[in-house]
């Protein structure tokens, strides 16, 4: 596959949309670069279309699970609130403080 054909597998517009979905702020230069690179990687992945998978079950985990794993529902000590909050950039009244998620109006 030529480079131009590989690049056609994904457009800059799609990369911008992916970056938004994945919450990644990219520069225009990043977008151009990732469009080229993701095109090359996807071109390689296209090879999966060659494989006959008719009637094949998907594998999520390669090692058979040893049955459902359960334990007694007994309370036990957890770590202190301030320990969990220690790595947070912003806290208030023992909580993580975040920005408003919804606009006030509308």
């Amino acid at each position: 596959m030529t480079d131009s054909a590989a690049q056609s597998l994904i457009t800059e517009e799609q990369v911008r949309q992916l970056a938004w979905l994945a919450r990644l702020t990219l520069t225009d230069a990043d977008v151009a670069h990732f469009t080229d690179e993701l095109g090359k990687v996807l071109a390689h992945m296209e090879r999966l279309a060659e494989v006959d998978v008719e009637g094949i079950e998907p594998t999520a985990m390669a090692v058979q699970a040893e049955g459902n794993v359960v334990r007694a529902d007994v309370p036990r000590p957890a770590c202190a609130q301030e320990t969990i909050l220690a790595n947070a950039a912003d806290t208030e009244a023992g909580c993580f403080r975040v920005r408003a998620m919804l606009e006030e109006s509308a």
Partner: protein
Amino acid sequence: MSELTTLSIEAAAAGLRAGEFTAAELTEAVLARSAAVEPTIGSYLLETPEQARAMAAAADARLRAEGDAAPLLCGIPGALKDLICTAGVRTTAASRMLETYVPFYDAHVAQRLKDAGFVLTGKANLDEFAMGSSTETSAYHTTRNPFCPDCVPGGSSGGSASSVAADQAFFSLGTDTGGSIRQPASMCGVVGLKPTYGRVSRRGVMAMASSLDQVGPFARSVRDTAAVLEAIAGRDELDATSSARPVPAYREACGRDVRGLKIGVPREYFAEGVEPAVAAAVRAAVEQLVSLGAEAVEISLPHTEYGMSTFYVLMSSEVSANLARFDGIRYGVPREGGTMWEAYSNTRGQGFGPEVQRRIMLGTYVLSAGYAEAYYVRAQKVRTLIRDDFATALAEVDAIAAPVSPTTAFRLGERTDDPVVMYLSDVLTLPCSLAGLPGLSVPCGFDGEGKPIGLQLMGAHWAEETLFSLAYALEQSTDWSLAANRNRIRVGDAQ
């Protein structure tokens, strides 16, 4: 007493118990060695001499109190990949995102080693969030190969491998998702094991691809590697995928007769792209095992060529989900933005490096509506075919022998421009990971430039003992071990 730093784990443990030296002296010797070589190699993101001295003092007290009953690793210096959480010790995943992150708990494997009384030398460098094959995607610094300082140590557990190769630690832990223990072990001339999926708990190890990730040991000999696995393997009730199967005394497998063991040599693992020196060394290692009484047969693993595509679809899908948690709220370094969503996006846009961003976007793409069936579900089905290839082969043979990496260590910067070229570094280790099998890299010689080559031994689920038996037989009957080749190390005394 610089020779202290090159002892086997068992010899060091014996010396400690006999009172020939203390854990404090052993630790000082390792710290002195590290001071000499670390400026060149850069194995560590964080050295922890204060913790090491305190842990050594505690180990000496314990050895005095418990004597022979103390665990084998009591007082033995070891390094941890900086993907493994350590309570009170900064853990970065080699990412700017976690530049200031100090975990409040130990990963299960770190806790197990602490319970055994080990001495933490430091947190080893890696590719950012373990995504890479050369340790060059670390946001902090590159790590150099002790055998060839112009070359990469491999990756992603590059610092774990180089620290052991350069005698900065007696052993280390790494993680392997698609080859990240075996490939750097091969390139740095040490032993590295990716255990069977579920053999070792993943709790407290930052998740990359949860259906593939596995923690495992690096060490300078097969017996040392087996000793470390004994200490970390087994059930963790807080990791539901960790197995309750009993943990064998793995060291007892070292020295077991290999006569009659049947070794499969997959023809697909010697395809185009495998350097002639690598193929020749691997075939010579198989011949050596045959001369010791094993039997070698050619086998086929027909879906090998689809391993890389399958792996990159599934791995990136799991990455995109696992790394969604990094938003700068509960931990991490937050960045400003107009709205909450913009702040998240800026945090992730500036906190993650390009390789991590590429994999997150790739996973987001292959999981998105309209593409998931063609990519994700199809890759899961090809994963079944790859697993079945191994199951069919391993019904006939006891182990599979192949190269670890198609090439020896490559030059720094040589492969950073093209992700597909870099991804091909792992093409021979990915299928074993997809099948959840144990895979071990053991030194099997050197190329014309003196760079190490590794033999990959793969076995059935839970068959680590077979791999140790074969690797030990090879190590003991040849002069390919690190111990026999320290004169080739190009840093420190030999520089």
